């Protein structure tokens, strides 16, 4: 089933969905497996699995370090595919690949997309691939029924949002603020205006990410967004309290 439809079905039962983020191979694929088990068990609706890259330009210190450590311990793209195949087989929720374009370019666009489709991945988040640069990627993703998630930023004009919407599929990822991943966002009046502009520009479900860390943050999004994205926070949690802390943390967000 296509990603958008899956999310819409879930939205019939919940007022806001949760998407989480993990870096594959950090701290290890074994720990990733346990984290995902806890996430799914506690009601996460969608998971983005980041294939580590040596130059993660859109990521802040926490995810940057996770990328570097995952590579230092020898995580290969092939390991990520095998692990992702296992996760998609094991758990019911949609999984996305998040990575930077070079990983895909080097693997071969069609080979990458085809294999992702075969193992049951639903889509891709590629922060350095705007649609202008991703024409062939978008066409191939369409061919294999997968979604390339496009991104809105607070600096996007209304016209740009509408243009992105014409190419978009699955859902729109709204970046909550200027900057990289990891820092706290202020969900203030400006933010509300921005979200209203996002809502006006597209019919697709809206996910909001960058700096979401607590139940209060998620409550602030209820009724305004369809999905909240939690990234750096769980990575920090695993570092300080171990993988077992992820389940209770997720359970406490609703």
């Amino acid at each position, binding site marked *: 089933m296509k990603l958008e439809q899956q999310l819409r079905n879930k939205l019939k039962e919940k007022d806001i969905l949760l998407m989480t983020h993990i870096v594959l191979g950090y701290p290890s694929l074994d720990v990733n497996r346990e984290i995902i088990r806890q996430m799914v068990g506690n009601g996460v609706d969608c998971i983005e699995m980041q294939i580590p890259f040596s130059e993660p330009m859109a990521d802040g210190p926490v995810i940057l370090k996770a990328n570097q450590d995952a590579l230092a311990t020898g995580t290969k793209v092939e390991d990520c595919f095998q692990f992702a195949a296992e996760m998609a087989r094991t758990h019911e929720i949609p999984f996305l690949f998040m990575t930077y374009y070079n990983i895909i370019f080097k693997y071969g666009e069609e080979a990458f997309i085809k294999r992702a489709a075969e193992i049951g991945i639903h889509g891709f988040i590629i922060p350095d691939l705007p649609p202008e640069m991703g024409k062939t990627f978008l066409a191939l993703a369409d061919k294999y029924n997968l979604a390339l998630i496009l991104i809105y930023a607070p*600096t996007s004009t209304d016209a740009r949002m509408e243009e992105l919407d014409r190419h978009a599929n699955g859902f729109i990822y709204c970046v909550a603020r200027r900057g990289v991943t990891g820092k706290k966002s202020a969900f203030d009046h400006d933010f509300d205006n921005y979200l209203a502009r996002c809502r006006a520009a597209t019919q697709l479900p809206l996910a909001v990410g960058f700096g979401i860390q607590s139940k209060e943050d998620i409550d602030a999004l209820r009724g305004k967004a369809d999905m909240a994205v939690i990234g750096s926070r769980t990575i920090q949690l695993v570092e300080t309290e171990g993988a077992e802390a992820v389940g209770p943390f997720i359970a406490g967000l609703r």
Partner: protein
Amino acid sequence: MDSNGFFGNWGGAYIPEVLHQTFQELKKEYDRCRKDPAFWQEYLTLMSTYSCRPTPLTYAENLTRHFGGAQIYIKREDLNHTGAHKANNVMGQGLLVKRMGKKRVIAETGAGQHGMATATMAAKFGLDCTIYMGEEDVMRQRPNVFWMEKMGATVVPVTDGSRTLKDAINEAFRDWVTNVDDTHYVFGTACGPAPFPEMVAWFQSIIGIEAAEQIIQYHHKMPKRVYACVGGGSNAMGIFKRFLDEDGIELVGVEAGGHGAESGAHAIRLSSPDASPGVAQGYKTMFLQDDDGQMKLTHSVAAGLDYVGVSPILSDHWENKRVRFESATDTEVMQALDLTMRLEGIIPALESSHAFAGAFREVGQLSKDDAIIINQSGRGDKDIFTIAHAFEDPSWKKFIIDRGREYSNS
């Protein structure tokens, strides 16, 4: 360049969405400036009054006699204010920043020359300035860090990855996506997302325009070959651009051979089997990367050439064979530097010494009636610690020890 910023198969703008609008504005302003002769005139005036333009073309009589081949001319970008060609690009972007009304500039730097030029421009134009520099390069290029700070810039040592230029670029992008509204990223070389490669090459083209005029004046005909070192590729594009359409002039780019092409410790992107096409830091070019697309560690004695990617414009000229690419090892570079100092009393930067090494290897085979131009992208003063160390100079070592002792006792 096409409308998406590609030079043949290379280039583009692979940027996060948050920068889209900023790039639109930058492209618009750059286009406006390029079409406005008054802008170039303003630029020339600034460069001739604040920097040292036109820089001389020096006939290297002793080197010419030593090799017994073509006549050797040296384009003296080392005589620019701040000691390198970097000033050309930075002052040009400075004029652009003024037009765009931004209050703050950031930059990455490897050898420190670009950071130094940016800090200078910021001081002159009254802008806030932050410079990102790999921790490894901060150690290698201490004199430049000192000057940048003295001119009011904040120098941020980057501790991620290889702690060199590519990591400084990532960190500068992180700053930029956070502060897009009031900040301009003064990109230091003909790399990065469009329009940077084209824009930087345009500002640097002043080098070749002057050199062509000067060589005709002194040698009465065009040169046979033009040599330049290639880190990102801005000084090379700067001197090559004017000669690209001139038939019969061979253009030679010299990359950093480090410990040798076979050693794995080098920065050879265009004349090396270790490199392959990739997309990183916002553009498509030849990168030193592994089979998964992870960037490799690079090495060069010259911090300014120690970079994993290369200008997409040069990748295009490599593919269409308009420019020939060679490399020189650290050892060859030190020999070329030694010879140039002794015979001409000129101290090229370690980066520039790559161009000298490449030229010295070949110049003897050319006719005495011909001329070559070597682009001396910068001066070697900043490299005094590295050079003295490489020459194992005993009196310098003693001086450092004595100074160290003085400081630790005080």
